[in-house]
């Protein structure tokens, strides 16, 4: 025979303060747990969304990032003429030869703070008109596109939000030139939002560079990647690494992602110990104050197993309430965008807390697990009571 669920729920409701405090402690743990997963999901979503499946990135062998890479004009031309590369309506290959530079810019600081100026590295990308064609997700939000052959630049919306001196009409001064900001672009929550774009030939001249950083090419069909890679690897003139764009950006998340996950999981486990102790204390008290009640239930014919289940369910319900509160609180975080330096690319990257169904389920399972562990010993104690002793208790 089962003990009715309303009995279990009412027991929690009767002791509101205790229930509230215990569930509150668990909610905080679930909040931290969910926040970490959301941060990691946001980071991955941003970097994975940056790459498109038909685009490939070519960089110098072993250089890992575009900033450290160098691809000569000859090498770029060889890639351009590969048969796997798609061609536009006018017959020109869909290839963008780009130069990537890190520029340290001052961050916007809270007004009134007189600390030293905080700077962070921003990716400055020089690209031809084709570069924008290969990234259809990029839209100009304000102002206009930079003109080819001019010292004009446009900034991503995360750069516009986080850095000082990058409003339309303002100038950035680097490489012996003044660069005028003429537009702000929205790259649809991808890493490009954290970049500054300008004309590739102008940038190469200004920085006295003779080689490109990377070559981005659209392949005619995604399955042609293998053929292109085989061709590039076989050509002794091309000492380059070639990757799908999605993979290239996905790889850049690995270091920061494992740091966040490791730190977050370690914290969640330590914190959950505290919350589980809270649940154990609460459930032991629940058992102690209801000793006579337990005796009565047993005398009425409820089995030991039913008592065990009832107390476990009470603990699980308590944890579930905590879990739901924790997730609800964490869901407010989705409004927040985090901006930090990605270790791997050594440049600033903005990403948002992202709540996925998977995270909701993980967080709920985590809270139920805490409830189970916390309520287990008290429930055993309750189920082991002898009827006579329990009834005699005052």
């Amino acid at each position: 025979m089962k003990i009715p669920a309303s009995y279990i729920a009412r027991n929690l409701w009767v002791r509101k303060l205790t229930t509230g405090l215990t569930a509150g402690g668990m909610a905080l743990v679930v909040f931290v747990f969910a926040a970490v997963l959301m941060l990691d999901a946001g980071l991955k979503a941003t970097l994975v969304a940056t790459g498109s499946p038909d685009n490939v990135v070519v960089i110098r062998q072993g250089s890992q990032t575009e900033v450290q890479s160098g691809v000569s004009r000859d090498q770029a031309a060889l890639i351009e003429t590969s048969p796997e590369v798609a061609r536009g309506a006018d017959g020109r290959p869909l290839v963008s030869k780009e130069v990537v530079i890190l520029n340290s810019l001052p961050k916007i600081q809270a007004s009134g703070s007189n600390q030293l100026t905080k700077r962070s590295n921003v990716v400055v990308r020089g690209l031809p008109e084709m570069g924008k064609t290969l990234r259809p997700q990029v839209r100009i939000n304000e102002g206009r596109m930079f003109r080819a052959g001019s010292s004009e630049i446009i900034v991503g919306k995360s750069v516009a939000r986080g850095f000082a001196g990058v409003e339309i009409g303002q100038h950035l001064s680097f490489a012996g030139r003044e660069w005028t900001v003429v537009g702000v672009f929205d790259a649809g929550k991808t890493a490009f939002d954290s970049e500054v774009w300008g004309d590739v030939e102008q940038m190469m001249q200004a920085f006295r560079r003779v080689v490109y950083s990377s070559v981005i090419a659209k392949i005619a069909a995604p399955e042609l990647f293998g053929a292109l890679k085989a061709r590039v690897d076989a050509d002794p003139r091309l000492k380059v690494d070639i990757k799908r764009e999605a993979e290239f950006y996905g790889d850049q998340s690995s270091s920061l992602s494992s740091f966040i996950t490791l730190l977050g999981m370690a914290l969640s486990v330590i914190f959950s110990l505290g919350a589980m102790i809270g649940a154990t204390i609460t459930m032991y008290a629940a058992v102690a104050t209801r000793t006579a009640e337990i005796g009565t239930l047993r005398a009425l014919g409820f089995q030991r197993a039913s008592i065990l289940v009832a107390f476990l369910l009470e603990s699980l319900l308590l944890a579930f309430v905590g879990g739901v509160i924790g997730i609800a609180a964490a869901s407010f975080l989705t409004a927040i965008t985090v901006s930090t330096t990605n270790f791997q690319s050594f440049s600033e990257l903005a990403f948002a807390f992202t709540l996925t169904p998977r995270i909701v389920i993980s967080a709920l399972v985590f809270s139920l697990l805490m409830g189970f562990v916390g309520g287990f010993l008290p429930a055993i104690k309750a189920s082991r009571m002898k009827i006579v002793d329990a009834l005699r208790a005052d």
Partner: protein
Amino acid sequence: MFFLNFVLRNVFRARLRTALTIVGLVIAVLAFGLLQTVVRAWYAGADAASATRLITRSAISLTFSMPVYYRDKIRAVPGVTAVSVSNWFGGVYQDPKNFFPQFAVEAPTFFPMYPEFVFEADSYREFLRDRRGAAVGRQLADLYGFKVGDTIPLKSAIYPGTWEFNVRAIYDAKDDTTITRQMYFHYDYLNEQIKRIAPRRADQAGVFVVGINEGQAAPDISRVIDAEFKNSLAETLTETEKAFTLGFVAMVETIVVAIEGVSYVVILIIMAVAANTMAMTARERMSEYATLKALGFKPAAVAAMIIAEAFLLAILGAGLGMLLTPVVVKLFHAATVSVFAKMPLVAHTFYLQAVCAVAVGLVAGIVPAIRAARVKIVDGLRHVA
């Protein structure tokens, strides 16, 4: 005396509950102390910085180099006592996981500016004599078992190929703040190799380390240096070594702030647990408090008893936690020594732990204390827990 005795006996009446609460407190105080220490560890580099050293780097960003002849122009600036070149090598030892910093420096001018690195005179001369020689810090040598005479092969993502260096000297730290988890080798060796493989990238300096007479002159000297190269191909940005190091922390500030924020969450969690314990305790004893009042105890005395009990719990838990903190920090540092060069446990951390313990005690005791003080004798005596 009676008061104290009463409180002590009450604390240990429900032994299991008290023990569990104290364990919870110990964990929370430990976690808090550890997180605070991790936050401090990010700033270890800035703690080690000297006020009489400036760093001059490219104004664009650290990934840009400057012509090495800038050295002589900087040397001519009044107030400058020494200038040396330092290049980030970015080498990987066997596996990318084995990260440690390597710098190509002009040793004869570099090390006199860093008196905190203590060399044996003989080995230092050996290091200067060997063109492929390397000087390895004590912490780094211990981490990978490097000994004098070893050869360290490094693959660099910045400079092509595999490079081999001979360990000629192992230097020690002068004091606790000195970080010795890095390797230095000769700039001349690097430069000659680059001249062969990539002549356009030769004769370039990543940063200049600038020694000055007195720290107060730093802002003026920095301005003069940067003005010297204004409107040149490679404009410079000069700042104190401390500001330079803090610049790295600022880049990941969001993460540091998050860790610090989270460290207070654990205190909130344990506050809820301790408050719960006290609330349950007080509810169960409501009739006892009423009895005490009936015997003539003032409401304030009853409230004081409950608050004292909460404090005692908090102090016991926090005290144990604080005692264990150095042990846990040491264990944690042993596991993360490749990430954090130093993990200094400062007095401030203990102070914060103590403040948190007091806050937990107060918050946990206050509501039950008010309830017990307010309860009417008749209601209290009738109370069933």
